[in-house]
Structures are given as structure tokens and as C-alpha cells.
């Protein structure tokens, strides 16, 4: 299947916004008392969120994890509301309650971001079940890392989703590390996608740094799901350029490995392809970049200028 030029440009734009958003956060989190909590970004992994969410309809849902920013931006979350939340401001998408790690954006059908590793899977099962129950032609996407596949919840969820043929796409974002552990230090299975067969669903392996390839795989899985043929496990092979979080010195990641993967930058890869094919011009590329920078600058300005919640607002939203 050929991916249209418009779609490719859209995938590229999304990735650039994600990268610029992350670039800002990596700076901001170094400033004392600016950003609460642990800063987790996903540089080098932009093609996964962009490609998968690029294949979705607005009514499709995503459930994402601690490394969520790219996914949420690609699904269409408002960068201002995300940034303000990351700052802990009242105008944030969750009024300062969730911060960077648990950004919930139900407005765009990204109702739950959980930092409990492996917890996205059972919740996605429930979300997909509701879609099936209501006979909606929709899917739920579940993002999780390679490490999450070692939790019991992974196995229970794949089994049930396959058994009930739920409209679900399991997206394993295999960035080769789970915390300080390299992939082969935490599992014997060479390809996570191989586990799909054990539960009776198709497993696909895709180059996670190739946004159009990710998009094609997600589109195929979506088609299968909405036609009533059940879930798919897509393993996106990618790489975490930085440490687990911004305070992780990540000495355990060989520097030449990082360099090799940086050379496979998903943004550069797609932009160079589009430039080579003369689908876009260098000027257009520069414009896309500065547009993304503008979006992020505006988000940061909005967050900076927003007030903190009043202390007693902590008591709200528990019971309603």
C-alpha cells in the first residue's frame, strides 16, 4: 500500500512537534523547581506515536504509559494544556493533579495514561470491549514498552483480547531498554511479536523508526479489528536515545549504539526521503520546523503565565 504524500507530510509534522516539545522539556526540567517529578521523554521514538495515531479516527481510543508525550501529541492533544499540566498549573489538562507522567486527555479519546508498567493493557481490553459491546466500528490502541511485556498483565490481556476478538491494537514500543536493562537482559524472546502467536493473534514486526511503515501496519491492524477479526500485536523496533529519565546518566547504554540509532533518526529519515523525492522543498521543511517551534513556544508561554491551583483544590475530583 502506498502512503499518500499528504499523509507522509502529516506524519512528519507530528514528529517534529513531538521532538520540539521534548527539546523544550529537556531544558525546562533542569531549571530548579520548574517542573515537578521525573522527566521522561522519547526522543528517537517519534515515528511510533505518529505512525500509529496517524492511522486512527478521532473516535478511536489510545491508552498510554509513562512515555506518553509523543502518543498524546500525535493523537491531537492540545500542547498548551499538556505543557501547563506538566508544569503543575491549574490550566493543565488535569488541573495539576497528574503532571507529566499521567496526562489524561479524554477529550481526544486518550482517557488514561498510567505509569504503572503493564497497566495500559488490561484497561485497553476494557475500552475495546466497550466498543465491541456497543457495536462501534472503532478500535483501542494500547501503547506499552518492551519491559511491560514481562508483567503478568500483558499475558492476561493478550489472551482475553484474542479470545473475545476485541477491536484492539497492542503496540509494543520496543526501545531496546526497560529502565537500566537491555532487552536481552529482561527476556529470552528475540522478537516480542512472537508472543502474539501464543495467544492466537497475529504479530507484526515493524521498523519503529519508519513512520509510514508504522502507519501501514497500524492501518492493517485497525482494518482487522473493525472487521471483527480481533486484535493484533505490533512490535515497533526503535530505540531510546536518552536515559530512562532525564536524571539517568545511562552509562549502561553503549555510546556507539546511541550514535548508530541517532543516525536512524525517524524525522531525518522521512524528511530526507521527502526532500529526495522532491515532494517537499527545503524551505517547506524549514517552515514546518519553525511552525513546530512556534507551537511549543506558545505552549511554554501559556504554562509559564498560568497560575498554580490553590492548595485546597487538592481535595476536588476524588468523589463527585
Amino acid at each position: 500500500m502506498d502512503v499518500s504524500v499528504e499523509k507522509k507530510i502529516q506524519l512528519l509534522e507530528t514528529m517534529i512537534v513531538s521532538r520540539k516539545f521534548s527539546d523544550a522539556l529537556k531544558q525546562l526540567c533542569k531549571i530548579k523547581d520548574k517542573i515537578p517529578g521525573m522527566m521522561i521523554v522519547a526522543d528517537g521514538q517519534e515515528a511510533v506515536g505518529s505512525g500509529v495515531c496517524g492511522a486512527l479516527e478521532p473516535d478511536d481510543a489510545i491508552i498510554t504509559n509513562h512515555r506518553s508525550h509523543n502518543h498524546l501529541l500525535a493523537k491531537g492533544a492540545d500542547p498548551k494544556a499538556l505543557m501547563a499540566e506538566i508544569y503543575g498549573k491549574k490550566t493543565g489538562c488535569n488541573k495539576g493533579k497528574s503532571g507529566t507522567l499521567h496526562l489524561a486527555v479524554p477529550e481526544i479519546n486518550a482517557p488514561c495514561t498510567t505509569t504503572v508498567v503493564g497497566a495500559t493493557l488490561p484497561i485497553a481490553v476494557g475500552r475495546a470491549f466497550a466498543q465491541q459491546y456497543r457495536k462501534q466500528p472503532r478500535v483501542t490502541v494500547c501503547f506499552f514498552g518492551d519491559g511491560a511485556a514481562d508483567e503478568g498483565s500483558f499475558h492476561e490481556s493478550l489472551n482475553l483480547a484474542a479470545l473475545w476478538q476485541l477491536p484492539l491494537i497492542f503496540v509494543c514500543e520496543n526501545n531496546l531498554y526497560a529502565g537500566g536493562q537491555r532487552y536481552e537482559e529482561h527476556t529470552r524472546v528475540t522478537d516480542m511479536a512472537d508472543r502474539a502467536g501464543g495467544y492466537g493473534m497475529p504479530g507484526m514486526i515493524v521498523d519503529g523508526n519508519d513512520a509510514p511503515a508504522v502507519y501501514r501496519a497500524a492501518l492493517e491492524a485497525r482494518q482487522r479489528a473493525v472487521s471483527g477479526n480481533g486484535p493484533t500485536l505490533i512490535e515497533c523496533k526503535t530505540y531510546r536515545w536518552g536515559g530512562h529519565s532525564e536524571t539517568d546518566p545511562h552509562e549502561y547504554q553503549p555510546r556507539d549504539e546511541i550514535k548508530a540509532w541517532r543516525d536512524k533518526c525517524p524525522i531525518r529519515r522521512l524528511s530526507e526521503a521527502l526532500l529526495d523525492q522532491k515532494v517537499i522543498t527545503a524551505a517547506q521543511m524549514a517552515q514546518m520546523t519553525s511552525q513546530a517551534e512556534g507551537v511549543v513556544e506558545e505552549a511554554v508561554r501559556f504554562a509559564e503565565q498560568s497560575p498554580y491551583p490553590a492548595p485546597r483544590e487538592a481535595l476536588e475530583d476524588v468523589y463527585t
Partner: protein
Amino acid sequence: MQKLGMGQAVNQALREEMHRDPGVFIAGEGVGVSIHVNPMLPTHGLLEEFGPGRVKDTPVSEAVIAGLAVGAAEAGLRPVVEIMFNPFFTLASDMIVNHAAKLRYLSGGKSRFPLVVRIKSGAGFGAGCQHSHNLEAWVAHCPGLQVVMPATPADAKGLLKTAIRDDNPVIFIEHMGSYFAPPMPVPEEEYLTPLGRADIKRKGRDLTVVTWSGMLGPAMNAAETLSREGIDIEIVDLRTLTPLDRKTLLSSVEKTGRLIVMHEATRTGGFAGEIAAVVLEQGFEYLKAPLRRVTGPDIPVPVSPPLERFYIPNADDLIAAVRELLP
């Protein structure tokens, strides 16, 4: 005397016990190769010293981390496993609650489960409610588990060594704030601090504050402030929630006639309720005033700094409660 942070004291206890007993091993996520490289942290340097045979980095798999401890303990080893943050205890809970706690009983006392589950806990890091949620009351509710929550590095060292040598399961909860608090004196020599024994960290005659773990600091600060007004607070650091040292608790309340329980965990169903019940059942006649609880409010721990500060009980909250009780 050496001065250590709590993480370093835990580290020393682990080293000493691993040297003493070849059956002691540690396991958990990042206990060897960590994403946090800091000598203040509890398992720093253990992999280098004891090797990967005894310092086992596990996959992200809390259920099997806890199960590993249960099975290995029955077989005669002395596992010390780590649950990275208190909320992730929920994933390990079947093995701990239904197995570690019950299997000895189910064997009619024939089997032993000498295991320690170390759990990092506490708010104050902007990490939010899925990382900061004190669940000590959950585990204290389970017969068969001993729940230890040290407040000082010296106690942490002595209590952990005892816990490792104990033949029954111990849940050992460390407040992360104590890792980075100013180092405190810790005896260099070997010593064991008994489980089930509270410690009076400050003697006083007007009012008893019972507390543990991360709240000892604020409680001591409040007592210091109040002492300038001539108010004399006694501070009982519980150290172990179960077994509970009723004797120290009741004799302190008998002396002062007033009780406040302070903990960081949320209020409803918190362990303060248990303390209150014990005092009402066995020391009602000592009380000259109603008792008070100073606890986290009944909400998940929020991220935003003003909200998180609102959540965490502090010295001012305790002082306000003291003023309510003292004429």
C-alpha cells in the same frame, strides 16, 4: 560515629548480612544496574561487591519478584527483595498477602518463610499518586506479616539486620525522603534492633505524639517549636507497626493523658485508627482530652507543588492539633 543517610544505612545492613550469611540474596528491578546512580541509595555498589549471582536484577515483574522470595525462603534462603515504589506493591500483593503471610500457618507451623520485602515509599517528589501512596495499613492488616517502618538511619540498619535474620516475613518500608535527608549518626559496629519495640525519640510530659517513618522529622520540629512555649511533647516512634508495641504506647499515654497520631498516609483506614482503638480499649481512663489524627487527606497524592504540599502533613498541622488538645 559515622554519619549516614537512610539508604546508606540500609546498604550497610545488606552488606553485613550478605557477608555473614551466604543464603542472603537480593532481587528486584534495578537493584544492580540502576537508572539512579547515587551512593545515597540502598543497593548502590552491591552488584560490584557480591556479583550477579546474589544481586539479581529482575524484569519488570513484581508478582514473580515476590513469589521468588516466597519460594526461595521456604527452600532455606533468605531473600531480600525490593518493590521499587509502594504503589507497585499491589502487583506483588497476591504473593505477599495470600502466600508469604499465610503459608506458614497453612503448614501448621512446619514451614518457614524468612523473607524481607523492602519497599520505597513516601510523597514529596512530585511523582504523583502512582508512585507516592503509603500503603502500610494494608499490609499491617494482614496477620502473618511484620511491618517495619524506620524513621532514622540507625534504626534502619538495626531493624533490617533483625528482619533478615527473622524466620517470618517482614515488610520493610523506607521513606525516600530519608535517603536524602542530612546524614545522621549510625553505630559502626554490628547491632540488632528488635522488631515490635517502639522508641521514645523525645521524652515529654504534656502530650504523646505517636508517629513513624517520614513524619518523625516534622514531629520533632513541632516539639522543638512548642518547647519554647513550655509545652513538652513526648514522641513515640513506633518503628514497627506489627507487632505493635502496646506497652510503650499505653505507658506514654498514661503519663501524658493526651494523644495525637501522625502519619503521612491517608486518613480513612489509616494505621492511626488502630492506635486510637488500642488506646480507647486499654487506656481510656488515661485520656484527659479527645485524641487527634494528623494525616494525609483522603485523596491520591497530587503532582502540582502547592497541591502536594497541601497533601503532606507538616509541623504546623501538628502544632495546630496540639493547641486544640492543650488548654
